[in-house]
């Protein structure tokens, strides 16, 4: 590796110096990096809990921890991963960095609110960390009553406050993105010329704004129930615990689309660039993001088939749940059609995209299994469900996140990551992932319940496989942490457009200047217009 002298050009990284210039920044790109640090911290913290869980499950009887501690482990793993990693992940890092650039804007509509969003995530995280260190919480990330309201002796309230505050962070980010996409597009950037990554983040923002307030009020009611015993979920007073579940899942189901929609947007970008072809059926893919956002609000009762919800409601929710699979499937078909006769490159981001497509498909199809009321009665609260959602969240979202991180790394840092190591870690992650989670489908189908700390001896082989996979996966995740940091100092300098991608973010320097573009771009081409890009480049060279 030749370490070249970095040219002294003004970028968003060196435009101002000192810690205050970062902690009081209004620059969406710097805020994206602040988020990147925060969510990386939470990812590895959540990963530590996952490690402890898998270590405990190596043996059928309790070995490492007590049953109560085990309950705290899976609860904290879930809470940290969902609320402090997955929900912010792509929108707050890649979205924050690139959405304004992709639409040709100087910044988001409300830069100071953007900074506030980051502080809220950190403050919420502090409450969650306090709860963790003071003794933990053991209710499961779903906080069902009456355990969470009446019986748990753990730090439910502190955790609830932390999630409430983090939820506010999410709401403000969503609000910012919606207004920005509607009103701050550069001249010529019509809705149907937007990169699909923008459409996905826009659809995600809709969910953040409409859904998150409901979990906020749910947490308020839970805290009131716990402290003041208002009785709203208490059968002794005439209350109904199932009401809690309705309120909880009204948000938490759409929340899973908050977690996956931006990932779907990343994959659209990657598939196009690394096949050098426009995304097949652009409009349909764009609308499918909005369709997922809308339909995702109509299906939450599928988490409650065995809760005591009326069978009639169960039928309705099961029926509607099949529909929400359709727009997701459309994306997969359209990506496949995009790849057909494309000029395919197997750079690391593309490896992650391929991994995503396969694993997301498995996750999505198994979603249909559990959407079926009759099947769900058997697999509810088993490892089948655990495997299903990890295929989507880890096999899907995290892979897309890593793919996007690799893809946009040269733009954000001005440096290239080491391609050989990157390809290797993508492979390690893919293999580790499947070894971890595929056995869990089988475990669940055979009846292994989730959240159990011990299990019958005959399940041990599958659990050992899963834990082995988890160790491989852990190695796979640590590798990018190391080589990304390495690349900041020693990686080759990247040019403005190392991938030959369309999109306004590639038409400015790497790293970009603080104000993004030297002149307001005027957009005259459709999205993914590689021919126009080539013509432009010929003109530049000639």
């Amino acid at each position: 590796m030749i370490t070249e002298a970095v040219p002294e050009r003004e970028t968003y990284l060196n435009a101002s110096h000192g810690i205050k210039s970062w902690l009081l920044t209004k620059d969406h790109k710097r805020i994206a990096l602040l988020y990147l640090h925060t969510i990386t911290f939470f990812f590895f913290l959540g990963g530590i809990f996952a490690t402890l869980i898998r270590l405990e499950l190596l043996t059928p009887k309790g070995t490492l921890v007590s049953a109560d501690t085990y309950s705290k482990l899976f609860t904290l793993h879930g809470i940290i991963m969902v609320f402090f990693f997955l929900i912010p992940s792509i929108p707050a890092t890649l979205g924050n960095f690139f959405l304004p650039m992709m639409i040709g804007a100087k910044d988001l509509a409300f830069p100071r609110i953007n900074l506030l969003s980051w502080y809220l995530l950190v403050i919420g995280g502090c409450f969650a960390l306090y709860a963790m260190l003071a003794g933990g919480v053991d209710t499961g990330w779903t906080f069902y009553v009456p355990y969470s309201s009446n019986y748990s002796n753990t730090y439910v309230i502190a955790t609830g406050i932390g999630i409430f505050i983090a939820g506010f962070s999410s709401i403000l980010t969503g609000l910012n993105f919606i207004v920005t996409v509607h009103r701050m597009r550069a001249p010529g950037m019509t809705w149907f010329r937007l990169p699909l990554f923008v459409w996905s983040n826009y659809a995600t923002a809709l969910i953040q704004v409409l859904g998150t307030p409901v979990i906020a009020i749910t947490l308020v009611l839970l805290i009131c129930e716990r402290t003041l015993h208002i009785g709203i979920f208490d059968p002794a007073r005439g209350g109904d615990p199932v009401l809690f579940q309705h309120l909880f899942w009204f948000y938490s189901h759409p929340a899973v689309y908050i977690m996956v929609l931006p990932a779907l947007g990343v994959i659209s970008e990657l598939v196009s660039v690394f096949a050098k072809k426009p995304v097949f059926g652009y409009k349909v893919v764009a609308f499918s993001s909005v369709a997922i956002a809308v339909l995702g609000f109509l299906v939450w009762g599928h988490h409650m088939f065995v809760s005591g919800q009326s069978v009639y409601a169960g039928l309705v929710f099961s029926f509607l749940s099949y529909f929400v699979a359709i727009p997701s499937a459309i994306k997969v078909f359209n990506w496949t059609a995009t790849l057909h006769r494309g000029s395919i490159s197997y750079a690391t981001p593309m490896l992650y995209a391929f991994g995503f497509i396969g694993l997301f498909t498995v996750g999505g199809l198994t979603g249909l299994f559990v959407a079926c009321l009759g099947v769900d009665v058997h697999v509810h609260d088993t490892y089948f469900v655990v495997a299903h959602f990890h295929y989507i969240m880890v096999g899907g979202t995290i892979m897309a996140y890593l793919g996007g991180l690799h893809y946009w790394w040269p733009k954000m840092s001005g440096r290239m990551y080491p391609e050989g190591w990157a390809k290797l870690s993508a492979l390690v992650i893919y293999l580790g992932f499947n070894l971890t989670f595929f056995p869990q489908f089988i475990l669940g189908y055979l009846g292994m319940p989730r959240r159990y700390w011990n299990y019958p001896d005959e399940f041990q082989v599958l659990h050992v496989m899963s834990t082995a996979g988890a160790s491989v996966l852990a190695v796979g995740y640590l590798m990018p942490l190391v080589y990304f940091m390495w690349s900041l100092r020693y990686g080759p300098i990247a040019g403005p457009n190392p991938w030959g991608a369309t999109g306004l973010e590639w038409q400015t320097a790497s790293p970009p200047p603080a104000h993004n573009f030297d002149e307001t771009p005027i957009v005259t081409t459709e999205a993914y217009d590689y021919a126009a890009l080539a013509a432009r480049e010929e003109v530049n060279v000639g």
Partner: protein
Amino acid sequence: MHEQAASIKSYTLVFLSLLILTAATTVVAFIDLGPLNVVMALFIAVVKMMLVALFFMHLRYSTVLTKVVVGGGMLWLGILLLLSLSDFVTRGWLPVPGK
């Protein structure tokens, strides 16, 4: 886009209408209309809401996007209420034990 300042007169008219409707809803509550009582109460409340939103909050003069945003909010509240109530209202409808 510079809006004309609305006249004090039109605001006063809306204000007085709101007061009258408040009195109306209170008085009507004391009359036994059976199931219509709750319908009347909600209807009057909706009318008052529309008056405040359209005139005091200037929704009447707002962009189409703003109106869509507000409509969307109401629709989503509707989804929360109706789809959740669909559980509670239908308990016991199907002849399945315990449901």
